[in-house]
C-alpha cells in the first residue's frame, strides 16, 4: 500500500520554547481515514499546520504524496485540501462565491468548477442557501460550507481539524456520514483530528493518541482497545475503602485502578470474576452504590496510555490553555 503521509521524528518548537509537537512518527496509507486524537493543547492543530506547509518544521521530516513538506511546499499545496479548526469562510461573500473563489485559486477550469460546486452544495444540503451571504448562515451551515470549500479541486488528501467541533448531535452524524462517503466512495485519504473519542471510534481506520506533543499509542480503534484487554467493570462504593489488594488477588483480574471511592477493574474473563468481586465487597461490610460493566472503549485506552482521565484534562487546565490560544490568535 502506498504511504500518502510519512512523518519521521517531527518536532515543532514555537517561539518561547513551547514544544507543541515532540518527536512524532507515523504513516498514513492511501485511502485511510486517520484520526489524531487528543485533548486541547495536545499539538493536533500544530501537526496539521506542519503537514499543510503553514508552519515551519523545527526538526524531523514529513512528506505528503512523496513531496517534502518543507522543500516542495507548492507541490504539497496543490494536492491537499484543508478544513481548518476555526471557521475561515468569508462572511461577506455568498456561499457559492466562496467555493468559486477557491476553485479559481486552485485553477479549476470554470465549467468543471460549476458542476462540482453544485454537487458539493447538494452533498451538504446547502443548495438552497448557496446564493445567500454567509453572514446569514447558522453556525452549522457555515461549518458545512467550510467542509466543501476545501474539496473543489478534488484533493487526494484532506486535512480536517476537528470537523465536528461545536455541532449538535444531529449535524455531527450528518458530517460523519459525509466524511465516510468522501473516504470510502471518493477515495480521499483523510487525516482528521478530534477530541471526541467516540468520533475516532466511529470513523477512523487508524488512530493515534497524542498528548502533550507526543504520540502515546497508535493503531486501529480495535487494536487500541486491545491495549486494555478484556472488559472493564467500574464499581462505585458508598464510601471510600481500600480494597485494592483484595481485588488484585481475585483470579481473572488483570489490573485495578482506584479513583476515590470508584474502582476500575480490568478483567480477563469477566464472568468468572464478577461474583467473586461482589461477594468479597459485601463480606467486608461495604455497599455498592453503582456498578457497570463495559466493553473497552477509547476513553479507557486514553486513561491507560496517558495516565489521566480524558474529560478531566479537557475541563480545567486545557480550558484555560484554549483561552490562551484564542487570546493569542485574537
Amino acid at each position, binding site marked *: 500500500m502506498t504511504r500518502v503521509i510519512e512523518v519521521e521524528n517531527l518536532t515543532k518548537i514555537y517561539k518561547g520554547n513551547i514544544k507543541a509537537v515532540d518527536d512524532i512518527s507515523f504513516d498514513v496509507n492511501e485511502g485511510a481515514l486517520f484520526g489524531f486524537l487528543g485533548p486541547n493543547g495536545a499539538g493536533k492543530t500544530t501537526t496539521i499546520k506542519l503537514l499543510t506547509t503553514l508552519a515551519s518544521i523545527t526538526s524531523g521530516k514529513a512528506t505528503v504524496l512523496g513531496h517534502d513538506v518543507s522543500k516542495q511546499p507548492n507541490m504539497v499545496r496543490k494536492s491537499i485540501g484543508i478544513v481548518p479548526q476555526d471557521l*475561515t469562510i468569508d462572511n461577506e461573500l455568498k456561499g457559492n462565491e466562496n467555493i468559486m473563489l477557491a476553485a*479559481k*485559486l486552485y485553477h479549476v477550469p470554470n465549467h468543471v468548477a460549476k458542476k462540482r460546486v453544485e454537487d458539493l452544495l447538494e452533498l451538504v444540503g446547502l443548495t438552497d442557501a448557496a446564493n445567500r451571504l454567509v453572514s446569514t448562515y447558522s453556525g452549522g451551515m457555515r461549518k458545512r460550507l467550510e467542509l466543501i470549500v476545501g474539496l473543489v479541486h478534488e484533493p487526494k488528501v484532506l486535512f480536517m481539524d476537528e470537523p465536528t467541533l461545536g455541532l449538535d448531535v444531529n449535524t455531527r452524524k450528518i458530517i460523519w456520514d459525509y466524511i465516510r462517503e468522501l473516504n470510502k466512495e471518493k477515495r480521499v485519504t483523510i487525516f482528521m483530528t478530534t477530541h471526541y473519542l467516540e468520533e475516532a471510534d466511529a470513523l477512523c481506520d487508524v488512530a493515534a493518541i497524542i498528548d502533550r506533543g507526543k504520540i502515546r499509542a497508535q493503531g486501529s480503534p480495535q487494536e487500541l482497545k486491545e491495549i486494555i484487554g478484556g472488559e472493564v467493570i467500574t464499581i462505585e462504593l458508598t464510601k471510600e475503602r481500600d480494597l485494592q489488594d483484595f481485588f488484585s488477588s481475585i483470579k481473572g483480574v488483570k489490573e485495578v485502578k482506584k479513583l476515590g471511592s470508584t474502582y476500575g477493574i480490568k478483567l480477563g474473563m469477566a464472568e468468572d470474576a464478577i461474583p467473586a468481586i461482589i461477594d468479597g465487597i459485601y463480606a467486608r461490610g461495604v455497599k455498592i452504590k453503582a456498578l457497570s460493566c463495559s466493553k473497552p472503549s477509547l476513553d479507557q485506552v486514553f486513561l491507560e496510555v496517558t495516565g489521566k482521565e480524558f474529560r478531566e484534562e479537557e475541563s480545567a487546565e486545557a480550558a484555560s490553555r484554549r483561552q490562551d490560544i484564542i487570546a493569542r490568535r485574537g
Partner: protein
Amino acid sequence: MLTETLALTVRELKKWIRTPASVFIALFQPLVWIALFGSAFNPTNLIPSSIATPEVMAQIRQSILGQTFGNAPNYITYLTGGILSLLLLFTSAFSGGSLVLDRRFGYLNKLLASPISRASIFLSRVFATVVKGMIPSLIVFFAALSIPDGLKLNPSFTLLDGLLIFLTLFLLSLGFSSLFTAIAMRMTKWESLVAVVNLLNLPLLFSSSALLPVTSMPDWLQAIAKINPISKAADATRTLIVQGSVDLSIIMLNLTYLIAFAAILTIAGGIASIIALRTE
C-alpha cells in the same frame, strides 16, 4: 499568478460594493472637503476687507491667486488637484486593512495553504485599493466642475489632459497602496494599522503642496514638500487643470518621479510581502 490576483481583487471589490457605507463615505468625504476647504479655508479671504475699497480687495485677491496659486481662477480650482491627491492617499492608507482581518479570521492561512503565488495576496489588495480610490476621484472631479464657482478648467483643456490627470493619480495611488499594504502584512491588530496610518497621513499631507503652495512654507518644510510624492501629483494635476493642454515637458519631471515612486514601492512592497508571508 494573474488568475489568483484577479480573483482576489474581485473578492475585495465585491466586499467593498456590498458595504454601501464605505462606498458612500469614499464619495462623500472628498466632496465635503472641497466644500469646506474651498470656502472655509480660502486663503484669499484671510485679508480683512476693511483695509481697502472693494475694488482694491478684488485686485489683491486676484494677485494672490495669480502669484501664489499659480494663476488659478479661484481657490477651489487650486485645491482640486490637492484634494484628489489626498483622496488617494487616504484610501490607500487602509489598503492593508482587509489583510489584518484576513489574518485574524484565519482566511490568510487558507490562502497560504493554497498553491497561489504569495505576490497575488499583496497585489490583489493594491489593485483593489487603486480602484476604490480612482472611482471616487473621478466623481469628485466632475462634482467639483459642476458646483457654482467651482473648479474651472482652462479653455484649452483636452481629454488627453484629463487622462494625464488620472494617470498621475493612479501612480500616486499605486505607490501608496503598495507602501501601506506592505506595512500591514504582518499586523494582527486593526489598532496598530490605525496608529500607523495616523502617524503617517497628516505629516504626509502637511508637508505637501496639496492645500497650500510650497512658497508659503519655511525652508526646511519646502525641502521636504518638494520631494513629497503628494506634491508631485498635486502640482502636476494642478498644472494640467489651470494651464490646460500644456507642453508635456512641464509635467514630465513630476510624472517621471511618480512612475519611479510607484514602480519602486510596488516592487519593494511585493518583495517585502513575500518575505513577510514566509512560514514561521
